[in-house]
């Protein structure tokens, strides 16, 4: 684990992007996989007898199958890479802080955390028909202090629920400390 939990600290929730966002990222790969199965036939019909070369581009041709198989393998690796990035990018919300883990690429990882007591404002945005119907959107957490920062995560599931949960955790934190949050 990239961070150690403090004494009495527990993980409340781990948040990733919505599955629909992942699906949308994979659509280009599906289209690129589908194109070689229909394009040769389409071009053969267009070109007619002038370019009979296209008629050879079928799954019965071993050389075409070789290229097609390698193309699909290449796309599969790309798609799996997208899934890996999707899974490893996440926020961990604990009873004390929010930890943001961002995987920019292999061997390029950014882990940042900020205390809930420093949270000044939490806002959410749900933009678009799919986002509204499926219930995903973005959340922005603004921290207080001289080095105030905005932490934004886009395309997460149930942003309003997450905002309420963060605010609830902050309220609990201040109750435990017997203090009132100044927001």
């Amino acid at each position, binding site marked *: 684990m990239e961070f150690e939990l403090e004494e009495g600290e527990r993980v409340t929730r781990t948040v990733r992007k919505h599955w629909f966002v992942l699906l949308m990222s994979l659509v280009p790969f599906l289209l690129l996989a589908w194109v070689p199965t229909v394009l040769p036939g389409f071009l053969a019909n267009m070109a007619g007898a002038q370019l009979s070369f296209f008629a050879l581009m079928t799954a019965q041709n071993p050389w075409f199958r*070789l290229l097609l198989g390698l193309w699909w393998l290449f796309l599969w*690796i790309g798609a799996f890479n997208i899934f890996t990035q999707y899974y*490893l990018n996440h926020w961990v919300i604990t009873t004390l802080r929010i930890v943001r883990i961002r995987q920019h690429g292999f*061997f390029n990882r950014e882990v940042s955390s900020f205390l809930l007591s420093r949270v000044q404002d939490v806002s959410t945005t749900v933009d678009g028909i799919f986002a509204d119907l499926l219930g995903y959107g973005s959340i922005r957490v603004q921290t207080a202090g001289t080095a105030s920062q905005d932490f934004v995560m886009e395309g997460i599931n149930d942003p309003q629920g997450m905002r309420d949960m963060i605010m609830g955790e902050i309220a609990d934190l201040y109750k435990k400390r017997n203090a009132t949050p100044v927001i």
Partner: protein
Amino acid sequence: MEPVAPLAPPAFLTAINPAQAISVLFTVLFIIWVIYTLVTTYHWLRYGHNSAVAIPALITHVLVSIFLAIYAVSGVAR
């Protein structure tokens, strides 16, 4: 006007054995795939937070890759 000579491939191309070329190509691709798989596995196991998704995801990656590689060579590897 001189007669047109038939188009002949360069000498170095005729010297290449297609079966050997494919073997070399697949060996190179296999090495790249193994490196990618090792790097991905490292990231999943190290940063996957002991998730139950990690092992099934890696198994799926390997199985689908093997299936696609077999499909690719199924016509030429006879």
